[in-house]
């Protein structure tokens, strides 16, 4: 259906793709596999008309094509779900779905009704139960991702490219997506599927293509491959998947949270968080599991001193009762948070690594009023080395780092404040298997050094592998607590399902 | 009884082109003060040099029941419709300082800028002995006073081939711009003999530039308006001459006319030019800011 011959692409000197060849047959799901930065997204952008300055040929239905812009590719029948969400925040779902290809009435005005009906049908198919005229900004990230998927399905495309479509959606939504992909395959469409969650690939893909450093390494049938085979092909060597081997240490309570409640602004009836109580021990990794919207991120935010006006809680840190009025208070008291969305909440993308690392702790180096650049640099070097941040220099702009390395910069920023409690919210989202592994290693090391660690994650295997103890949340309440030894996927999920369904 | 009293009380609107220039502030406040002495309520409207805003003021003033308008127009032509509108509403308009090209104004008491500049030019020619290089600083290029003054000046000066204008630049009637433009002109033309500025603020700015360049002693500065600073500067022999307008006379005459109108007088001289007088070191002691002693 769609093929690429000898495709190369450079970004101001950096070679992103180097002589790529691949084939995407109709009626098949092809998985593209590769580490962060292998060139997967770049290749897909070429196929879908985002970049038109590349070397080599794209062959579509037997003839050579060169799409000048996304619309040309769309019209030819190639749809793409981009890795980054590309939605307009203040337009509604319908408006986003039809953006650039609005339905019009005979006199040229928008046919809003027709669009809404079509959008509603599509949302129903995707089991997204929100009205079609909801503003995107009011949706959760997972729901936005579903809209992004709907956008690609709106028209009868021949080729559908999905670049990490599941990075923010939960299990049940993934199942729906599988169903849709199966349908597409039946309709003899060519589907491209990119994901760092290897399990998904085994479930859904027919073929695989491995990219490494911008080159095609290998391709073949998915059938008969194992986890380790794939990882080996991706990374070029074997890696050991970390499992937490901490054994029960003495239990010194580090953080104690009693009756934590978080109200909703302008609404006195409903609470977002209800009577949360838990303890965190020194040197412990406490996993917090839950489905989308369970309130885990809000819990982390409250513990960092956000929403002080809406919070009621008794928090004891290191045997002292503390009250946080702002993030500044919380950080000074020894809390630190690696937020869920590193680009939006964790980093100043336009500034360099060094500045980002020292952002929360610059006071340490400014006792004279002026910043001691030497000390700052030493610190930056220390963390770049300690966390194995892959960069050419501490002056690299954070925007240009890979996702995994960006995540490490956020962790470095938190560690630089010398925290007692380190909270990590979905620390491995969108990160390749190798980088994930490094972050797991890091978390274990930090726990071993005496920090209390709270890790929020939606990925069961991850939370099972790394935690000493697991709390489960649903609908703003604590619904379960499990020691690592007797936690299973089953009982975690059971506790996470909301009772009100 | 109180009520009939307040019904009797007439209100006078004073609409001035701008309050961003002390000359007009003085004009407006003098008119307001006179109206008060005569027993009328009055209010000052600032058109901010914006003819459209002036139109709004007229509409608002008419709607608000003002009985007369003392008017300092932003523009001789642009303000015509406003005067017509007032006439239609039966509100007499007395123009101050600037003319309006309309017979509908009840009376127009104005400074004769053109002939004022002619007499200023006479002094200019004499002071320079009919030869030398000079610089002209224009006011706002979109203001018709700028051109009335410039034309009056050139109508005489241009007859003397020995007088050469080496630069003509605008400084927007602004003291700071007068200073900066003059500083730059002095770079290009270090050897000048005189500066003619379209108002005193620019003249004072130009003088300061000359001081900074060490040329204040032999470059003659001429202004226009009769502002306080300029009168003082003429006394101190810093500025050579200015043309004195009489905002006080103008404003008071206008207010008196309104008073007379209320009392039944209808035959006003359509145009009453108030002479602009030349002020030099010789006669400066007869003058104070904006008027005669």
């Amino acid at each position: 259906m769609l093929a690429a011959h000898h495709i190369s692409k450079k970004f101001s000197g950096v070679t992103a793709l180097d002589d790529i060849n691949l084939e995407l047959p109709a009626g098949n799901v092809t998985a593209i596999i590769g580490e962060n930065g292998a060139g997967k997204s770049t290749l897909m952008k070429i196929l879908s008309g985002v970049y038109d300055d590349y070397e080599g040929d794209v062959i579509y239905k037997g003839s050579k094509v060169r799409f000048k812009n996304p619309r040309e590719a769309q019209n030819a029948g190639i749809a793409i779900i981009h890795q980054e969400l590309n939605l307009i925040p203040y337009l509604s779902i319908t408006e986003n779905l039809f953006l650039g290809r609005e339905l019009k009435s005979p006199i040229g005005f928008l046919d809003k009704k027709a669009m809404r009906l079509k959008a509603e049908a599509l949302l129903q198919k995707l089991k997204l139960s929100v009205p079609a005229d909801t503003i995107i900004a009011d949706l959760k990230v997972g729901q936005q991702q579903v809209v992004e998927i709907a956008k690609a399905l709106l028209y009868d495309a021949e080729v559908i490219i999905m670049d990490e479509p599941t990075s923010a959606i939960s299990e049940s939504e993934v199942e729906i997506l599988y169903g849709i992909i199966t349908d597409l395959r039946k309709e003899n469409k060519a589907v491209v599927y990119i994901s760092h969650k290897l399990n998904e690939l085994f479930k859904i893909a027919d073929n695989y293509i491995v990219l490494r450093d911008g080159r095609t390494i290998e391709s073949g049938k998915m059938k008969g491959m194992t986890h380790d085979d794939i990882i080996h092909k991706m990374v070029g060597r074997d890696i050991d998947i970390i499992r937490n081997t901490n054994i029960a240490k003495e239990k010194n309570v580090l953080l104690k949270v009693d009756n934590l409640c978080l109200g909703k602004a302008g609404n006195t009836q409903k609470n977002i968080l209800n009577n949360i109580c838990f303890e965190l021990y020194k040197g412990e990794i406490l996993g917090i599991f839950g489905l989308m919207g369970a309130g885990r991120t809000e819990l982390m935010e409250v513990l960092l001193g956000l929403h002080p006006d809406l919070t009621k809680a008794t928090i004891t840190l290191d045997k002292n009762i503390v009250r946080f009025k702002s993030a500044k208070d919380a950080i000074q008291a020894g809390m630190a948070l690696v937020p869920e969305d590193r680009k939006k909440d964790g980093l100043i993308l336009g500034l360099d690594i060094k500045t980002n690392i020292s952002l929360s702790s610059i006071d340490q180096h400014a006792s004279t009023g002026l910043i001691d650049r030497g000390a700052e640099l030493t610190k930056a070097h220390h963390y770049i080395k300690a966390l194995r941040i892959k960069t050419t220099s501490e002056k690299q702009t954070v925007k240009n780092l890979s996702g995994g390395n960006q995540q490490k910069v956020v962790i470095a920023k938190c560690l630089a404040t010398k925290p007692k409690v380190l909270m990590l919210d979905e620390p491995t989202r969108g990160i390749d298997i190798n980088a994930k592994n490094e972050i797991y290693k890091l978390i274990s090391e930090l726990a071993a050094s005496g920090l209390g660690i709270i890790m929020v994650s939606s990925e069961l295997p991850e939370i099972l592998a790394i935690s000493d103890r697991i709390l489960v949340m649903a609908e703003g309440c604590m619904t379960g607590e499990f020691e690592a030894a007797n936690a299973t996927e089953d009982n975690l999920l059971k506790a996470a399902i909301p009772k009100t369904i | 009884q109180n009520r009939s009293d307040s019904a009797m009380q007439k209100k006078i609107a004073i609409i001035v082109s701008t309050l961003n220039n002390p000359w007009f502030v003085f004009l407006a406040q003098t008119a307001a003060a006179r109206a008060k002495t005569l027993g009328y309520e009055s209010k000052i409207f600032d058109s901010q040099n914006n003819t459209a805003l002036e139109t709004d003021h007229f509409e608002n003033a008419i709607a608000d029941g003002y009985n007369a308008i003392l008017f300092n127009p932003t523009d001789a032509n642009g303000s015509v419709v406003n005067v017509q509108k007032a006439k239609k509403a039966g509100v007499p308009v007395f123009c101050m300082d600037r003319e309006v090209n309309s017979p509908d104004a009840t009376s127009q008491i104005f400074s004769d800028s053109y002939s004022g500049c002619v007499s200023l030019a006479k002094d200019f020619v004499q002071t320079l002995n009919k030869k030398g290089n000079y610089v002209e600083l224009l006011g706002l290029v979109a203001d018709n006073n700028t051109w009335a003054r410039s034309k009056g000046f050139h109508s005489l000066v241009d007859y003397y081939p020995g007088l050469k204008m080496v630069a003509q630049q605008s400084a927007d009637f602004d003291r700071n711009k007068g200073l900066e433009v003059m500083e730059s002109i002095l770079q290009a033309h270090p050897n000048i003999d005189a500066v003619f500025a379209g108002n005193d603020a620019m003249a004072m700015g130009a003088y300061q530039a000359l001081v900074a360049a060490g040329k204040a002693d032999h470059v003659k500065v001429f202004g226009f308006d009769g502002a306080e600073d300029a009168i003082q500067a003429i006394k101190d022999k810093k500025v050579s001459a200015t043309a004195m307008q009489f905002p006080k006379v103008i404003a008071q005459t206008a207010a008196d006319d309104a008073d007379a109108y209320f009392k039944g007088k209808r035959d006003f001289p359509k145009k009453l030019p108030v002479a602009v007088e030349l002020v030099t070191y010789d006669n400066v002691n007869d003058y104070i800011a904006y008027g005669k002693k």
Partner: protein
Amino acid sequence: MILSQYRSHLVKFQSLIALVLLCIGIGLLSDKFFTVDNGWNVMRQISVNICISVGMTLVVLTGGIDLSVGSVLAIGGAIAAGLLKFGIEIPSGNLYIGFTLLGSILGGLAIGSLLGLFNGWTITKFKVPPFVATLAMLTIARGLTMLYTKGFPISNLGDSFAYIGTGWFIGIPVPVWISAIVVVVAIIITQKTALGRYIYAIGGNEHASKLSGINISKVKIIVYGIAGMLAAIGGIIITSRLDSAQPNAGMSYELDAIAAVVIGGTSLSGGRGTIMGTVLGALIIGVLNNGLVLLNVSPFWQQVVKGGVILLAVIIDKANSKND
């Protein structure tokens, strides 16, 4: 969901509260305020600002800004007046082209649109920030106006031209008709056409819009062109009201226009806002100007009070739409 709908209504009408409070306040202090005459007064006075602000709203919705509207207003009015009165004379060829009323108006609109399109062109083609491109145009268009008029107003344009700014039609002043038509057309564009969608989309997320196949440059150029044309309409109204094209007309009108847009709840970073909001913003400013005069506030105090009230109006808005 209900919350979100409610909120979008709030965004639309958030300034209404401030406007109502303002009107009540002035009405209590002056019995002249709530009269039919004064109502038309205010409406006529804001008609020019509405034309400009509507164009500004479109520009701001795309995430841009247009500082040149005041100057473009001046040249639009001047060209229309000049064409009507003098036509075009080409001395060398001994050619003279006269213009009808309509022709001269179209001429004024054409020059406004052209300068607006030029703004859009420099902004999209050379990636000049809108602030700089239109700031340059502010100066250029003012200079061109001076060159065309030689610094003198063009007056006495005849009764039929005067009708545009001073006439009445079915009991409503003509400028109010014009601004109402502008508002309605703009609402249709923003709410009912693909162009409107694209305007919001570009302001919301330019990159995503590009990936959706929207021709960003085209939309932006059109929008700046519309803003230029609307400024020229404003210029023609002013010229007609005054029966005179003033070379310095419209100075610093851009600030009033932007104020109307922002007070009306449109975000300066683009993507959010409504035409009706801007109309409310313009009304607030207009009512305030009118009220300060009616209440006989001294001119020096007026500025202080005006600034204070605008600040207060926005604070009230914010307090009432805090739930987002």
